[in-house]
């Protein structure tokens, strides 16, 4: 007996063994269909008694195991059911012959047999036989179960007769010695007359009768017989049979204590629990007593005494196993006893003791086992460990079984089986194949062992010829075990991953195995690790602005209150999602990721792009190479939204080592993000401007550099005028339908006279709408008129000549010079540092507002701003003004002392006067003959009194008008020949 039946359990001792076999040609599926129907008759209630007979069916049973039938009767084949097909009547004799041949195999133990013939059409000449049943086909055999029941009853009759025969046999003087196969030769020539021998015979027979009683459903009698057998055998030191008697005792007690059975999983036994017969067995045990005689209390007391307590069962099992252990040839019996004991302990929930039995079972040597048997043995150990709740140990043995499948000694390694078994070990090592389970919190389970297992999975799946699986497992290994891999291991893993992916690129699809197990995709969220995701606003010049009035409407519809805690609360929720700027359809948008590479070598990330939802989005993938163990590294991913609406950035996708992965942000709690939802507005045109003047690095103070798309700078003398030509080109894809230009002077402490920047937009507006690619030019004149009068300390000290244009307030430096010094002081101290540099700066910002296309409909426009930076140098100073009467009373001579502060030669000309050449830093007097006029007579030309609110403004405006008047009368111009500049002097204006 070499093949253990690992599925055995204690209650199998009360069953009778029936072998069901096919004879001749029987289709396998049909056979098993019939077998299943036969096997459904697992217990039969015997007529006229309240006993139950349990039947165990096997379709395969080794005759050598049958030889142990005397030792434990449940190993004895007592019934044979043959299934055969017989097409025609003439084949019948041959079929019958085969049946008889099959019977021969088990003839020594067989009580009864049956033959089921299928497919026979027509009649058989032979007379009706009780042991043969004919069915026209495999489908039309309604009474199979009933026939099997009859068959079982006939077995019971034989069993019962044997039991009675043996039980009453004790009066006979000669008792046959029962023995196991390997004992036979030991008893040759033994003195059969000794007391010792007789006792041995008696003991063994008692035990045998106990077995028979148990099978016949007489638990009480069985217990009594077993007890007697134990006593007899113990006295003669017949250890093997003593063990068997003890085990029988245990089995009977287990059957009594646990009527539900200990196998747990066996489906065939399950229904018996619910059957009334069983229930009665539990509640009224007396009902089952011997010979169907109704119970009385005395038997009940006897049973309780004979039956072992749950603790005793285990002790007795231990004892029995230790006796079996003395015999090398009884290894299978010992192993099976261990398994049975474990099942009992599992029911009793005594896991630790069960593990001791299992530990013992591991060491039982069954001699040379085939590889298949080894695998079976490890698998069953694993199952039993699972049963007692030792999941880790179970996983360990399952893994050993898996490794056994592919042991080097096996000519054809079963990688598929190995892989399947390895998958089953995963829960024992707290591994799941879903990377989500590992994404949060600390690591679960034992990393070193898990890594090993994953490596084995990878290898097995590769040998199975499924590189896709290998890639998936390897990716999983890399993703979840990254913290535990050494640098060397990281290198190896990635190298092999690259090898595999060269054949089979990894993707994001779910791999479904043949047995329905799904392998979820493994996104590489740690290669590289992303720390933050930030959506970037468009550059200032491309940012869309909402037309004001619409914006205000929006605010007012949101809430009539300036502040409300409820709304704040709602916004707080929204804030984490929605971002307060907009992207524009058709324009490149950017998302900045902060990434770092945890690997000890350079990491190449290819095809990195954004995953978005909401609007159609064209992601422009980027490839990047991160240095080894890099710090945080900014990466900008770009894309173009193709439609308008709300866009959500869900994550990013990468391709690393040939594995493409989609990493969703919601699965990455460690990623900081300021929001992922942004509004995309319809497309707007784009304008590019270029200027005739050089660009400058200056930025007007209150504006940040970012806000200005460009700026120009120019250096001018006071009073000089220059043309700035701006070329505007539509570089977008939409027509520019409207254009507005505004200017804003910034950073002025000095008063600017006249218009600093002036332009005529009409010309440009005529070109609208501006088609894509078209340009329009705009010329802007820059004119600087500044008051340098605070700089009198540059000039020679002035003596008041006492003669002046008396009583006339002149809007010129002159006027201030004539005023008392105290007032001048105040002015000069105020105008501060600029005095010393001689140069004053003027800055302004030109704002182009333009819009068009679909964005215009939605009320958006864009702004393009140009900074203008002008350095103003002083040109001419009038240091003194005086008048002399002229020859005509209507006229007078105006004497101007002119100072040239520049480094160039300067020519000054005026009406009715010849040019005056001034060398650098020279001061000369110019005399001009002018008509006298009265300021008061000046018409109030462009004054609208309503527009000036204060008298001071009114005064200023009047001065300005007067200055213009003077200017037109005098028409003083200066020019610097060396620079070929010729400009009107504006100083007096």
């Amino acid at each position, binding site marked *: 007996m070499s093949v253990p039946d690992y599925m055995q359990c204690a209650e199998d001792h009360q069953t009778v063994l029936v072998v069901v076999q096919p004879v001749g040609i029987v289709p396998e599926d049909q056979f098993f269909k019939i077998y299943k129907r036969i096997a459904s008759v697992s217990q039969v209630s015997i007529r006229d008694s309240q006993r139950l007979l349990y039947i165990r069916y096997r379709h395969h049973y080794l005759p050598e195991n049958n030889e142990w039938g005397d030792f434990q009767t449940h190993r004895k084949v007592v019934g044979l059911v043959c299934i055969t097909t017989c097409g025609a009547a003439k084949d019948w004799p041959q079929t019958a012959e085969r049946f008889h041949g099959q019977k021969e195999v088990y003839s020594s133990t067989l009580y009864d047999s049956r033959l089921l013939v299928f497919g026979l059409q027509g009649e058989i000449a032979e007379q009706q036989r009780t042991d043969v049943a004919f069915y026209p086909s495999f489908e039309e055999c309604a009474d199979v179960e009933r026939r099997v029941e009859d068959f079982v009853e006939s077995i019971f009759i034989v069993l019962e007769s044997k039991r009675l025969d043996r039980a009453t046999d004790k009066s006979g003087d000669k008792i046959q010695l029962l023995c196991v196969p390997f004992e036979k030769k030991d008893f040759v020539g033994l003195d059969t007359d000794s007391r010792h021998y007789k006792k041995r015979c008696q003991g063994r027979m008692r035990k045998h009768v106990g077995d028979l009683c148990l099978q016949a459903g007489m638990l009480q009698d069985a217990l009594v017989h077993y007890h007697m057998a134990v006593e007899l055998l113990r006295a003669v030191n017949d250890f093997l049979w003593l063990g068997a008697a003890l085990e029988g005792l245990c089995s009977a007690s287990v059957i009594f204590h646990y009527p539900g059975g200990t196998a747990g999983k066996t489906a065939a036994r399950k229904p018996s629990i619910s059957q009334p017969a069983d229930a009665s067995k539990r509640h009224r045990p007396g009902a089952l007593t011997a010979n169907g005689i109704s119970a009385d209390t005395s038997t009940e007391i006897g049973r309780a005494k004979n039956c072992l307590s749950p603790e005793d069962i285990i002790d007795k099992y231990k004892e029995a196993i230790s006796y079996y252990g003395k015999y090398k040839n009884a290894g299978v019996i010992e192993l099976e006893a261990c398994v049975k004991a474990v099942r009992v302990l599992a029911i009793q929930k005594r*896991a*630790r003791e069960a*593990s*001791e039995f299992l*530990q013992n079972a591991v060491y039982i040597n069954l001699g040379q086992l085939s590889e298949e048997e080894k695998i079976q043995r490890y698998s069953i150990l694993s199952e039993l*460990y699972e049963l007692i*709740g*030792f*999941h*880790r*140990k179970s996983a*360990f043995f399952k893994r050993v079984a898996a490794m056994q499948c592919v042991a080097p000694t096996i000519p054809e390694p079963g990688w598929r089986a190995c892989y399947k078994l390895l998958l089953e070990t995963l829960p024992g*090592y*707290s591994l799941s194949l879903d990377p989500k389970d590992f994404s949060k919190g*600390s*690591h*679960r*389970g*034992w*990393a*070193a*062992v898990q890594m*090993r297992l994953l490596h084995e999975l990878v290898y097995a799946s590769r040998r199975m010829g499924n590189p896709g699986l290998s890639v998936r497992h390897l990716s999983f290994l890399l993703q979840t075990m990254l913290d535990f891999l050494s640098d060397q291991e990281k290198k190896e893993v990635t190298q092999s991953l690259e090898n595999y992916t060269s054949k089979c690129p990894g993707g994001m699809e779910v791999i479904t195995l043949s047995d329905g197990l799904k392998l979820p995709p493994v996104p590489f969220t740690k290669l590289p690790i992303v720390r933050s995701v930030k959506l970037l606003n468009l550059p200032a010049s491309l940012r869309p602005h909402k037309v004001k009035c619409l914006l205000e409407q929006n605010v007012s519809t949101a809430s009539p209150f300036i502040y409300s805690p409820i709304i704040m609360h709602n916004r707080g929720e929204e804030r984490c999602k929605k971002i307060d700027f907009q992207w524009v359809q058709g324009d490149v948008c950017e998302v900045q990721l902060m990434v770092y590479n945890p690997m000890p070598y350079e990491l190449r990330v290819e095809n990195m792009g954004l995953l978005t939802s909401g609007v159609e989005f064209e992601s422009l993938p980027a490839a990047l190479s991160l240095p080894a163990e890099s710090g945080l590294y900014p990466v900008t991913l770009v894309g173009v939204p193709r439609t308008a609406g709300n866009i959500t950035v869900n994550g990013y996708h990468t391709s690393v080592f040939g594995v493409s992965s989609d990493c969703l942000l919601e699965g990455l709690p460690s990623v900081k993000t300021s929001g992922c939802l942004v509004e995309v507005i319809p497309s707007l045109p784009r304008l590019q401007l270029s200027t005739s003047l050089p660009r400058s690095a200056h930025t007007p103070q209150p504006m940040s550099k970012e806000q200005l798309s460009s700026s120009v700078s120019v250096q001018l003398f006071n009073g000089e005028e220059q043309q700035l030509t701006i070329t505007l080109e539509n570089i977008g894809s939409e027509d520019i339908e409207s254009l507005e230009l505004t200017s804003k002077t910034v950073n002025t402490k000095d008063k600017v006279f006249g218009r600093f920047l002036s332009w005529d937009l009409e010309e440009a507006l005529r070109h609208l709408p501006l088609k894509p690619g078209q340009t329009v030019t705009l010329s802007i004149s820059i004119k600087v008129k500044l008051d340098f009068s605070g700089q009198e300390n540059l000039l020679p000290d002035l003596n008041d000549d006492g003669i002046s244009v008396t009583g006339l307030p002149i809007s010129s430096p002159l006027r201030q010079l004539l005023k008392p010094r105290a007032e001048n002081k105040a002015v000069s101290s105020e105008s501060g540092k600029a005095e010393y540099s001689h140069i004053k700066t003027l800055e302004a910002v030109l704002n182009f507002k333009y819009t068009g296309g679909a964005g215009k409909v939605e009320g958006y426009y864009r702004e393009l701003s140009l900074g203008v930076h002008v350095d103003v140098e002083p040109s001419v100073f009038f240091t003194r003004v005086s008048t002399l009467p002229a020859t005509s009373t209507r006229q007078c001579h105006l004497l101007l002392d002119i100072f040239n502060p520049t480094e160039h030669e300067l020519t000054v000309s005026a009406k009715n006067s010849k040019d005056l050449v001034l060398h650098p830093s020279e001061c000369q007097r110019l005399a001009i003959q002018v008509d006298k006029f009265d300021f008061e007579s000046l018409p109030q030309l462009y004054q609208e009194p309503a527009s000036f609110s204060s008298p001071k403004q009114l005064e200023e405006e009047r001065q300005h008008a007067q200055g213009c008047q003077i200017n037109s009368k005098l028409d003083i111009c200066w020019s610097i020949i060396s620079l070929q500049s010729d400009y009107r002097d504006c100083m007096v204006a």
Partner: protein
Amino acid sequence: MLPFTVYFSPDVFFPQNYPLYIRSVPSQNELKFHYTVHTSLDVVEEKVSAVGKSLADQRELYLGLLYPTEDYKVYGYVTNSKVKFVIVVDSSNTSLRDNEIRSMFRKLHNSFTDVMCNPFYNPGDPILSKAFNGIVSGMMVQTS
């Protein structure tokens, strides 16, 4: 001789057992010990849960011999917060009796307490403390 020590994070806070500290001499064939210790957890859990029913509080921390294998003996110790300590020793080493093992565990427990008292130690992280390492090394030298 081979002491092989492992510390598990408490069950109470981290339901998944995972090693906080592993040390073995000789260091080759370490995986085998990983398996040994990993499977021993089954027994530890079984012992703890069995005791837990009757005497929840006054439990002996030392669990004794968890199970003998052919070459090694595996001893266990569980603190009140369910931190598990496991020591594997060569079964041929007869100088180590129950009492010695018990005192080794006590020492380890004390040292572990010191580690936990470190404000910079984050419970659940692998133990990298030099002092702790020193204690373990000392025990290994002593017993070999």
